């Protein structure tokens, strides 16, 4: 069992960072939120609306993929490996959501996309294909792609783990900008310095369970749990 007994409540505008060793279930936990994985028990509720299904005649009926689609618009997901659409330019990667999913006309969708790409400092790269962009640029396009859908919540699955070290900063800067604009975010990351700066709460996860949860200052300076201390000392060596 990858994840057991994990419960998280996040308020609008809050930023929660989840850290932990590989295989601890943090990615699985994140993917359960937008239903890329289906939990075997438990529920996900976004502003009073249950995600993934509904109660009908006293029984839980899970949604089909088509029904899930409309719920997923409200949640943005940034992948470790970017997952940009290889056959589309950066502009169209960001525009395809507003155009095909939200039904905006193509010209308007492209305007929205251009605006979002400017927001992530990629205004001169609109026509480039993913293969022509660096990792950091690709991840910023991925973030813009989420932002174009005006999500209520954004999930980040180790957004900088696949990047060369010198490209990490540009992505973190964009995320710090989102944090300042009070975007609600749940971020799985190994970037402790970033977590310290940006998080409202940090959660340490291990073997599928939440071990410790606290605001960054008490969390990093005086962790209560032994396992947390061991993990942090290994990481900050």
């Amino acid at each position: 069992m990858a994840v057991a007994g994990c419960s998280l409540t996040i308020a609008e505008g809050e930023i929660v960072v989840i850290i932990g060793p590989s295989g601890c279930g943090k990615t699985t936990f994140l993917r359960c939120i937008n239903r890329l994985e289906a939990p075997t028990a438990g529920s996900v509720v976004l502003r009073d609306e249950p995600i993934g299904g509904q109660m009908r005649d006293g029984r839980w009926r899970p949604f089909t993929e088509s029904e899930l689609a409309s719920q997923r618009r409200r949640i943005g997901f940034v992948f470790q490996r970017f997952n940009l659409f290889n056959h589309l330019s950066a502009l169209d990667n960001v525009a395809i959501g507003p155009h095909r999913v939200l039904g905006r006309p193509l010209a308007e969708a492209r305007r929205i996309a251009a605006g979002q790409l400017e927001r992530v400092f990629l205004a001169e790269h609109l026509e480039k294909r993913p293969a022509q962009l660096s990792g950091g640029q690709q991840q910023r396009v991925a973030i813009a792609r989420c932002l174009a859908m005006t999500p209520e919540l954004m999930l980040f699955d180790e957004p900088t783990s696949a990047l060369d070290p010198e490209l990490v900063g540009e992505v973190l800067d964009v995320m710090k900008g989102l944090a300042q604009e009070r975007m609600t975010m749940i971020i799985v990351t190994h970037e402790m310095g970033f977590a310290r700066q940006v998080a409202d709460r940090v959660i340490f996860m291990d073997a599928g369970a939440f071990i410790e949860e606290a605001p960054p200052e008490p969390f990093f300076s005086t962790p209560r749990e032994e396992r947390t201390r061991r993990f942090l000392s290994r990481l900050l060596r």
Partner: protein
Amino acid sequence: MTLDWSIIREAIPLLAQGVVATVKISVLAIVFGTVAGFLLGLGSFSGLPPIRWFVRSYVDFVRGTPLLVQVFLVYFALPVVGINLSEFWAGVVALSFNAAGFIAEIVRANIEAIDRGQTEAARSIGMTPRQVLVFILLPQIFRPVLPPLTNELITLVKGSSLLSVISVYELTRAGQAIISVHFVPFEIYALIALYYYVLISALAWLSRALERRLHVA
């Protein structure tokens, strides 16, 4: 070895007519087969089990029986259900059915080969499975399916020679007609082989040129 060159000279234009028919048959079959093959290939991702089952059975049958037998089946089975086609069109139908089966597999395999991350990203921005297929997956298979599709076209050109058994006047049949009159099997079959070779080499060259052009884009 003495060759009857006068027969060979006579045969060249006669066989050329057969080539025209061969080309017509192959082009028709690849067009119908590609359309049907794409529909079937997409059908293997349907949410409805009966559709997936039908596609699976269809592909298994086409791949599990000889083309010659399929040609006979179409030729003799269609009149039984009231469809009366000329042998030319029966031949085109049989070849199209065959091509569709192989192309369905080509389409399915290439769609499955696309990285899962593409589908997950598309689902994450709220695309339905149908939108993922049409806007994200299909566009990305157009280049990779070109080599196997041109291979299928070459296979069809060779397979069209089997239509000679139901008297379709394509290249092989045209040669057999000359042999039955002049009794020069070696010369004629050698000439037929040469015609097929030239035709298929031209197709292979065209397909390589097309692939080179598309990879530049």
